């Protein structure tokens, strides 16, 4: 890995609601190298979006810091931050909510350039056209409104919007979760294509491990705001170390009707961030939990080169994983 483009250190985030403290993120640290695609997976409510937005300072972290290309983002003044913004962009999950219903596609695509006062009106429109081309949409889309497009097309527009500012880092927050399978594949292909062509660095958020595998070089597994495991994707899918990762993998239903796998169904549900379990937060659902798990928070440690996990047990057999 070269010098990291993004490095996140001890990021924590908590909210107070109705007088109770909700710890959404706790001591999150990771790095993303230039040109690297890192996946972030976890169940709903595990804090994926919060990480993604904290990285771009769309949410103010409670503590910890985020460095982008050597610049400390946390604590940057709002004007300085505004200057940094074009270099990092966000792609949203919901293709319906992420495009203003009251703007034409042209206006949506040139909005960022306008905010940043880049180019003349003409030049901005030209860049919008280029962006549309990049996502395989016809140029005449520029005068239409978002509601005239299907979900997949809208998601492409969202991607094009992120591209107009020529960012170095893209945070893609579940960009394909809302799409139908047939469309999902189109968008995954497009994203991978663009990433390779433009050399983008990307934080790719998803709850679907199968999708993440297609795009990412490395994967971070999140549970209740804590990192459970980080590994290169080839490594992770072949040799998942953390019981949670294994459970996630085994829960994905497969279309291979014949090869019925032995599944390991997790019991219970993700606990509330208002009162997380002591020690390892996963222990309440972990089939391998032992007494010691409730004692101390397991630290994230390297178990193989580039493979980190937060589990005190190393003795769990790989078992029936695929």
């Amino acid at each position, binding site marked *: 890995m070269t010098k990291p483009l993004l490095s996140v250190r001890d990021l924590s985030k908590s909210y107070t609601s109705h007088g109770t403290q909700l710890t959404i993120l706790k001591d999150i640290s990771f790095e993303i190298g230039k040109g690297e695609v890192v996946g972030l997976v976890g169940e709903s409510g595990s804090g994926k979006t919060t990480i993604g*937005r904290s990285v*771009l300072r*769309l949410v103010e972290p409670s503590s910890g810091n985020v460095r982008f290309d050597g610049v400390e983002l946390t604590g940057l003044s709002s004007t300085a*931050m*505004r*200057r940094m*913004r*074009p270099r*990092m*962009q*966000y792609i*949203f*999950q*919901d293709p319906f*909510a*992420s*495009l*203003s*219903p*009251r*703007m*034409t596609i042209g206006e*949506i695509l040139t*909005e*960022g350039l306008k*905010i*940043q006062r880049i180019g003349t009106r003409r030049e901005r429109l030209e860049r919008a056209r280029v962006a549309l081309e990049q996502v395989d949409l*016809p140029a*005449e*889309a520029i*005068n*239409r*409104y978002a*509601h*005239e*497009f*299907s979900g997949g097309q809208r998601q492409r527009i*969202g991607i094009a*919007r992120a591209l107009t*500012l020529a960012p170095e880092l893209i945070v893609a927050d579940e960009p394909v979760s809302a799409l139908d399978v047939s469309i999902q594949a189109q968008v995954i292909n497009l994203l991978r294509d663009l990433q390779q062509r433009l050399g983008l660095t990307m934080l790719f958020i998803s709850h679907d491990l199968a999708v993440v595998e297609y795009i990412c070089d490395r994967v971070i597994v999140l549970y209740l705001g804590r990192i459970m495991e980080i590994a290169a994707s080839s490594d992770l899918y072949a040799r998942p170390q953390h019981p949670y990762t294994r459970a996630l993998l085994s829960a994905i239903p497969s279309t291979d009707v014949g090869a019925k796998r032995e599944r390991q169904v997790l019991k219970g549900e993700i606990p509330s961030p208002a009162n997380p379990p002591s020690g390892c937060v996963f222990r309440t659902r972990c089939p391998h939990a032992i007494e010691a798990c409730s004692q101390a928070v397991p630290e994230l440690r390297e178990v193989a080169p580039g493979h980190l996990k937060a589990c005190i047990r190393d003795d769990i057999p790989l078992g029936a994983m695929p």
Partner: protein
Amino acid sequence: MLARTPSRSPGPLARALDRFLINRAAVFGICLAVPVLAMILTYPLWWSFKPNDIDLLAMNSGPSLKHWFGTDGVGRDVFARVMEGGRISLLVAVASTLLSAVIGFLFGAVSALSGRWADAVGMRFVDLVMTLPPVIFLLVLASIAGTGIWPTVLVISLLSWPLLARMVRARLLELRERDFVVAARGMGAGLPHLLFRHGLPNSIDILVVYATLQIANAILLEAGLSFLGLGIAPPAASWGNMLNAARSTAVLEQYPWQWLFPGGALILAVLAINFIGDGLRDAFDPRAELN
């Protein structure tokens, strides 16, 4: 789908208009409002009496070919006064609506889009104004401002804006978290951009509906103020102060044309505007977008 129409396609406003036009009640409202408005605006061109010309010899005469709506207690032509009163009532209504819309929108939008402190202080202030008993507020404001068109406009505006501010704030608080606004923030948008590029277009339905219904409301408020001897002072005509004449039993009973016509005009206008407002509300209903 994309090949359907090469030209610029209808925007959200155009689609709202489409939906508006198939609403029969709303179109009926328009059909009611447009001729009335045209008459009110053009009456000096084709009506020979002036609203303030008195004729003590022809006072309290009933409707006739000469005076369509009869004459009032000093022999002024009621038709001319209804028209002139319409001008003033509508002017007051439109101006106060605009003023309160501007105040309400800016207050609500800035509250929602700037920091938590500004929001808290702003909303407490709105609460305060809304806790103030409206009767007192109205009376006191009116005695401070005095009578006449602009004081009345001011009084009505000051009374009406907090409601809009709340609605706009609620809408924008929700909007603030919407992805496309987060996207704009992510591209470095500041308050003015959010306010006018996102806040305004996305409150347009609230504003339009508020505006129409508020115009109706303001006409009624003006009438009420004039009834209390505030508002538009005679001899200037307004629907409200013309109706004030109905207080006198003699007028109520013996010269009904002196209040029936302004009353009818007022109810008709408010009704038409309410119909239109309703139509607009339906037309802008976000759920309608789904179909």
